[in-house]
């Protein structure tokens, strides 16, 4: 690959171009047949004779810009050797789903997994964009060749919660999949899921992964929060011989993946299996221990050689509109937390959810399962919704009504202080002169009233760092997130942080990546290991 003068590239373009040794090419054009994007073709202009061997080294498109007009062998989706069609994932029917919290996605069987895995061309773009840089082509190849156990071992190499990711990952890997340029991306998430499901219990996972646990090195690490980031840091530290204690406020581990994500997407037994495995290798989790209440941060700080904070974003933003204090008006994350904790929540039979992200969709789909008729009110257009397209489709299949370009202005209460209706304005989309995405602007007088028995706000969460007490001076935050360096170290060298409280991507795999990086940071900090 050669850098071309005056061609700096840009997003998706390294700026580099291949230089071909024409003298060695046999013109079989298999490159054309396997190029997933269809960008390779042969030209007719290949016959030339020269006494200079370097003449045979040329950069297509740069050394002969006219070549584009003289194409001979080109690629089409009908002749390409790539497999463009994804093996469809079996799922429960839409209206059947809302009757229970049973898992919607049914999983690939062995044959489907092998076939889907065999579509991968091992280009590795997925690894590049995965926050955790998982060894995706390698484990997919293992699945394709029938070595499921190898696949699982490769996966556990840098992700101790792969079944979670196999079910709910935001999978940026699939967005960049080379096959997706002209076809369906390889179902990377579902293949990971398949590999993890081949080991049905934590004992089996242990047997297959057969983790090498190093002897104790005498160092202790205190971890606050048993969310994905805390669990990841704990797992890899424990494998490296650290004595690891997690302090978790809740009765169960998993953080938002336990108390946020609904069970029809990520069932409890699947989470339990993964937590059991992590505990099996020596990670200690102190449940129902809220730092700042049941134990002080100071104590953890002083008794450990290093501290990792994976405390997430537990507090919801409120809508800030009139009547939000009504009975029956609540925050979607709180609602999901209570449902996931097995509590009863009174929502009635008509629910409005406000927001367009995954939390909004989750709250809506859970409400539908509770028997309510659900409407989502979202400020922008459906195509602007930050939620996963598969989630939006899932919600629509389940009969959830999405009202786009709707801006809530007031929650009306009845005489008992109970929610009666939401009032909202319709919005028009106005182009942003600064080149940003179009903005919704309320249309005067377009007021609409939606009768409801419950309203849920789902417009985002924020951190709660009150547990730090005096340490909040030393451990700096910026716009609600901890300031960390590239090994997740905060402004107090002994304290590391990761997950939603640090990164902006706010998903499980980024939290896992942070936890994994922090392990390296802690190793370097405590043992000087680079």
């Amino acid at each position: 690959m050669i850098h071309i003068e005056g061609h700096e590239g840009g997003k998706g373009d390294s700026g580099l171009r291949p230089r071909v040794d024409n003298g060695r090419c046999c013109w079989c054009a298999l490159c054309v047949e396997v190029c997933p994007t269809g960008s390779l073709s042969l030209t007719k202009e290949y016959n030339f004779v020269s006494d200079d061997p370097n003449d045979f080294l040329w950069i297509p498109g740069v050394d002969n810009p006219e070549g584009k007009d003289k194409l001979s062998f080109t690629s089409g989706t009908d002749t390409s050797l790539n497999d463009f069609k994804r093996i469809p994932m079996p799922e429960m029917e839409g209206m059947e789903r809302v009757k229970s919290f049973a898992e919607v996605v049914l999983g690939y069987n062995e044959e489907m997994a092998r076939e889907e895995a065999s579509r991968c061309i091992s280009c590795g773009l997925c690894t590049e964009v995965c926050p955790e840089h998982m060894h995706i082509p390698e484990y997919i190849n293992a699945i394709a060749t029938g070595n499921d156990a190898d696949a699982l071992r490769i996966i556990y190499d840098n992700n101790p919660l792969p079944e979670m990711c196999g079910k709910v990952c935001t999978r940026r890997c699939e967005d960049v999949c080379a096959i997706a340029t002209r076809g369906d991306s390889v179902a990377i998430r579902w293949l990971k899921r398949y590999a993890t499901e081949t080991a049905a219990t934590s004992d089996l996972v242990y047997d297959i992964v057969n983790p090498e646990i190093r002897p104790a090195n005498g160092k202790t690490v205190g971890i606050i929060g048993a969310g994905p980031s805390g669990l990841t840091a704990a797992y890899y530290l424990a494998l490296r011989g650290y004595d690891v204690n997690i302090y978790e406020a809740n009765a169960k581990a998993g953080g938002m993946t336990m108390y946020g994500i609904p069970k029809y997407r990520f069932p409890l037994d699947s989470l339990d299996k993964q937590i059991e495995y992590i505990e099996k290798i020596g990670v200690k989790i102190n449940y129902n221990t809220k730092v700042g209440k049941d134990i002080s941060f100071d104590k953890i700080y002083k008794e450990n050689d290093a501290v990792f904070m994976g405390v997430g974003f537990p507090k919801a933003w409120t809508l800030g509109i009139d009547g939000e204090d009504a009975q029956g008006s609540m925050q979607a994350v709180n609602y999901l937390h209570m449902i996931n904790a097995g509590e009863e929540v009174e929502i009635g039979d008509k629910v409005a959810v406000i927001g367009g992200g995954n939390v909004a969709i989750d709250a809506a789909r859970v409400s539908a399962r509770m028997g309510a008729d659900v409407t989502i009110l979202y400020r922008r257009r459906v195509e602007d919704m930050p939620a996963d397209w598969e989630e939006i489709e899932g919600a629509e299949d389940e009969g959830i009504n999405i009202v786009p370009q709707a801006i809530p202005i007031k929650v009306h209460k009845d005489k008992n202080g109970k929610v009666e209706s939401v009032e909202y304005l319709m919005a028009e989309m106005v182009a942003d002169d600064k080149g940003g995405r179009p903005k919704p602007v309320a249309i005067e007088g377009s007021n609409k009233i939606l009768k409801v028995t419950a309203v849920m706000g789902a417009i985002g969460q924020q951190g709660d760092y009150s547990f730090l007490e005096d340490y909040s001076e030393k451990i700096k935050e910026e716009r609600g997130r901890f300031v960390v360096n590239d090994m997740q170290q905060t402004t107090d060298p002994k304290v590391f942080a990761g997950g939603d409280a640090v990164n902006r991507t706010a998903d499980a795999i980024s939290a896992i990546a942070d936890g994994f990086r922090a392990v390296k940071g802690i190793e370097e900090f405590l043992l000087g290991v680079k």
Partner: protein
Amino acid sequence: MREKATTLYLGPQHPGITGNMMVRLKVEGDTIVKATTEVGYLHRAFEKLQEKRNWLQSFTLMCRFCVPETDPMEESYARAVEAIEGREVPERAKYIRVMVLELARLASFMLWYGGQNGSLGLYTMGQWSVGDRNYILDLFEELTGGRIYHMYIWPGGVRRDLPKGFEQKVLKTMDYLEKRLDNFDDLMFNNAIFKKRTQGVGIVDKETAIEHGVVGAVLRGCGIKSDIRIDDPYEVYDKLDFEVPTAEGGDIWARALVRRQEARQSIRIVRQVIADMPGGPVYNKIPNPQKWTVPKGDAYVRTESVRGEIGLYVASDGGNKPRRVHLRGAAYVHGITLLEDVLKGANIADVSAIMNSLGTCPPEIER
């Protein structure tokens, strides 16, 4: 008085062959007492390379085994892999394959016309026939992008369907070549020099032929009717109407007569496949080549080339590369053991003509 014996080295370059090979000749006067073939100039280790390349990459090496007629090896490989895998080939692809194989035969005959005459110092023939061969190569270029190496017949079918109007172009070329074959007759078979130099020269009798395992036109030139296309038909040869010519005598002349008629039979076959060719797909797609594995097993297939029977053995251990590919071409026998035998007692001046007539093809011998 006996003349003193000396040793002559013929080759590795000379007019009788395509590719490099040497024959060490022990002569007394201008009569050969003993001929020893010396190969080793062209070994490219294709078979070994194929064990290191995946199933699809391997296919691109097949055509290179024998330069004058490249398609039978591709077809053999495709058919062997399909046999191990149980992969179906669309009917249309089979017709196209036969069309390509017969065009390849014709192109190879054109080269032979030139080579056989050139080895006797009759150069006009080569200017005609090699010139006419280009019309076939033009067709190949349009169909496959390549003139000599086509890399077109691959496991599952062929790489692309015929371009628009291709059949008409082929038929036009066939009409032209058919007329040209009459011209060639005048220049070659009605030529006293050619007759004199080939009749009774380079004789392979029936017994010798059988003893050596001789195949193809050389076998048919001693009166034995044998052709894999009839004896063990593949693709759609069993649906086609054509003849297998033979001749008596086993000399260069007899073999030339056989080839002369075979060229006409190829034209007949091409016309038939174009007339009978069904529609439909031309390719039963293989999986993603990087992940493509062929089930454990092996296959031996036979194909009729212009030089005679080609046997190809392909074995898979279930992986994504061939475990073994082995080709046994006609030239392997004709160009070594048979040649050494036939050259005994021959005149030095006839060596090149005999080599050419036996279908000696060093790249196929060495692989």
